[in-house]
C-alpha cells in the first residue's frame, strides 16, 4: 500500500493506462503544459509527449466530438473537462454522439471513451460552476456513471473505466483531490465497475452515498455513533449501473434506508434507487426511505448558504433520526 492523495491516485491511473495501451490519449484544456487545472495530469506531457497529452483551445464541443470520432476509429480517448459544468456546452456530442451512435448504428461502433473531471459544489464558485451532473448523464441509457469517494477507488475505477469498451462518465469530487488514502501498488489493481462497498458495518440503518457525499456521511457518523446508532454505510462508487444486490443484503439486516446524494433532488439517482427498493424490497422496509440531496435552489456563492443547500451532516443526522422514529 502507498499513501496517495485522490489527485495522485488519478494521476497514477492515467499514467499506467497510457503506458499500457498506445491507443489511449488524454485531451482537454490545460492538460499538458499546465499539468491540468487541478494538476491531475501533472507530468504526463513529459512522459507521453504532445501526441498523446493534447492541449486544446476552449472548444468543448469540438474536442469532445473529436474524441467521439477518434473512438469510432478505434482509439481510446480520455476527455478531461476542466470542470464537469463546462461539459454543458458539449452535451450534444456527449449525449447524441457518444451516447447514441453505437445504438443507432445497430451496434457497429464501440465507444471506449472516458469523460472525466471535477464535479459538484461547495467551493463557492457560483451556480454555473457547481453542477453535479451525475443524474443528467445517468439518464442516458448507454452511460456508465462513476463517482469515487476514496483514492484507491479513484485509481482502480479510473483504470477500469479506461479499459471499458463503453462510454464512462467519471465524476471526481472537486473537494476530494487533496484527501489521502491507502492505495494498492500492483499495476493491475482494478476496482470493478458496478460494485459498491461497505464502509462501516451496522445494524440499525443503511446509509447510501457516493463521492463527496460519502465524506459528509462519515462526518455525520461521528455524532450518530455517540448516540449509539449503528449505521451500515455503503459507498456506491458506481452510480449506474448500481449495486442493487449489496443494497438489498444490507436492507435485509437494517430494514431502513437513507440515501445521500449531491445532485438536485428532482429525478435524482436516489429517487431511482428508492423506487427500486420500495418496488422490489417492500416487505423489508420498516420505514419510509429518506433522501438527503441538494436543495432545489441553484448553488449560491455565499459559503454559509451554500453549505446549507448542499447535503450536510446535519441533514444526514436528521434523516437518520427520522427513519429510526
Amino acid at each position, binding site marked *: 500500500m502507498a499513501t496517495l492523495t485522490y489527485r495522485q491516485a488519478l494521476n497514477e491511473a492515467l499514467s499506467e493506462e497510457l503506458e499500457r495501451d498506445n491507443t489511449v490519449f488524454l485531451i482537454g484544456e490545460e492538460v499538458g503544459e499546465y499539468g491540468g487545472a487541478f494538476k491531475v495530469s501533472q507530468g504526463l506531457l513529459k512522459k507521453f509527449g504532445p501526441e498523446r497529452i493534447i492541449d486544446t483551445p476552449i472548444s468543448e464541443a*469540438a474536442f469532445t466530438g473529436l474524441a467521439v*470520432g477518434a473512438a*469510432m*476509429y478505434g482509439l481510446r480517448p480520455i476527455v478531461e473537462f476542466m470542470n464537469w459544468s463546462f461539459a454543458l456546452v458539449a452535451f*450534444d456530442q456527449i449525449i447524441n454522439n457518444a451516447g447514441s451512435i453505437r445504438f443507432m448504428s445497430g*451496434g457497429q461502433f464501440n465507444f471506449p471513451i472516458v469523460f472525466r473531471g471535477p464535479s459538484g459544489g461547495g467551493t463557492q464558485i457560483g451556480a454555473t460552476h457547481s453542477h453535479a451532473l451525475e443524474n443528467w448523464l445517468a439518464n442516458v441509457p448507454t452511460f456508465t456513471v462513476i463517482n469515487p469517494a476514496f483514492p484507491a477507488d479513484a485509481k482502480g475505477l479510473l483504470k477500469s473505466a479506461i479499459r471499458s*469498451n463503453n462510454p464512462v462518465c467519471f465524476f471526481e469530487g472537486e473537494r476530494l483531490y487533496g484527501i489521502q488514502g491507502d492505495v494498492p501498488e500492483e499495476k493491475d489493481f482494478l476496482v470493478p465497475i458496478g460494485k459498491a462497498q461497505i464502509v462501516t458495518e451496522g445494524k440499525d440503518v443503511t446509509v447510501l452515498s457516493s463521492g463527496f457525499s460519502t465524506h459528509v456521511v462519515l462526518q455525520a457518523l461521528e455524532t450518530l455513533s455517540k448516540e449509539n446508532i449503528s449505521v451500515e454505510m455503503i459507498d456506491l462508487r458506481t452510480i449506474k*449501473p448500481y449495486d442493487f444486490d449489496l443494497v438489498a443484503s444490507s436492507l435485509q439486516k437494517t430494514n431502513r434506508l437513507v440515501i445521500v446524494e449531491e445532485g438536485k433532488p428532482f429525478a435524482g439517482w436516489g429517487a431511482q434507487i428508492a423506487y427500486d427498493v420500495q418496488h422490489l424490497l417492500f416487505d423489508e422496509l420498516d420505514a419510509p426511505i429518506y433522501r438527503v440531496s441538494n436543495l432545489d435552489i441553484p448553488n449560491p456563492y455565499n459559503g454559509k448558504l451554500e453549505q446549507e443547500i448542499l447535503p450536510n451532516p446535519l441533514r444526514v443526522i436528521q434523516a437518520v433520526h427520522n427513519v429510526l422514529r
Partner: protein
Amino acid sequence: MVDNISFSEQVHEDFKSSALAELPKEMRLELYKTMVLIRRFEEKSSQSFMQAKIKGFCHLSIGQEAIAVGVCAAIGPEDVVITAYRDHGIALARGISPKACMAELYGKSTGTSKGMGGSMHFFDKNKKFFGGHAIVAAQCPIAAGVAFAQRYLKENTVTVCLLGDGAVNQGVFHETLNLVSLWKLPVVYIIENNQYAMGTEIHRSTAGLPLVKKSVAYDMAGMVIDGMNVEEVRKKVLEAANLARNENCPVLIEARTYRFRGHSMSDPDTYRTKEEIAEAKKRDPIALYSQLLLDQGVLTRDLIAQIDKEIKKVIQEAVQYAESSPEPDLELARKICFAEEDSIEPPQRPLYGLIVD
C-alpha cells in the same frame, strides 16, 4: 442565387472543354449509373413513404446526386465518409447495398443500422461510412476525430465530411474548423450548398457569403465547385483529398447545388417559386451528364434504356428484401446498447424501467 447559376454555367462550359474528358469510359458509365441508382432509389422511397411503409423523416437528395457520386469516386475504400441526415445518396455511392438501405428505411433488422437508425442514421463501418447524423453540424467534430485518429495511427487516409449550408451557422462547425486547421488534420469539409436550410433561403440566414469565405478565417484552403457536375466534383475533391492527405492541409469546399424536392417528405415547399425550381432543374446533374456522355458517344439511347432496366430490377429487389425482412425486437435493442468487455469484469446491467413481478 442568380449569381450561383451563372457561375455554375461558366464552370460547366470549362468542364466541357477541359481535360476532364480523360476519365476512362467505364468510370464515366459508373458515375452515370450510380447517379441514376440514387435517383430511382429515392423516387421509390418517396412512393413507399406515401404508402406509409416508410415512417418518420425522409429527406431526399434528388438534384444533389452529383456530389455524392463525385465524392465517392474521388476517394479510396480506406478513406472515411461522414455526412448529415440527407444520407441515402452518399451511402449508395459508397457502395452500401440498396437492399440494406431500403431495409433501414423500412425499419427492419437487416437494414444498415438494424432498424435502429432509420433514414437519417445509415452507418456501415466496413465501408467506412461513419453516418448519417441528424443534429445539424454534429458530424463536423466527429470527422475531425476520425482524421485525428487516421494521423495518430500514421495512416495515409483522409476523412471527407459533408454538411448542409445551414450547418455553417452552428457553433461547433466553427470550433471544428479552428481545430482542424490548427492541428492540420487530413480532412475535407464539403458544404452542399443547396441554398436552403428547410424553408430558409441562405441570404436570410447567413452573413459573409459566399460560404467558401468561412475557410479564410481559419486559414484553410477553400474551393467553390459546381455540385451539378459529377466529373468536376470528382476532380476537385480528389485535389482536396490530396492536399489533406499529403500536404497536411484541411480543405473547405462549397459545392453549389439545388434540391429538387422539399426539405423532407412532409414539406409542401411553399417558400420558393415553381419557376425557381424549374430553372434549377435545367441543370439536373443526371440530365447534364447523360447529354454529355451521349454527345461524346460514351452513352447511347439503348444503353440508357438498358441501364434503366437494370436499376429498376435492383430497386425492386431492394423493396422486396425490405418488405420481407424481419423487424428488430427488444432483445436485439438491448444487446446492441453495450459493446462486449474484454479487459474488465463486465458489470451487470439491469434494464431499468422494465416492470418486474
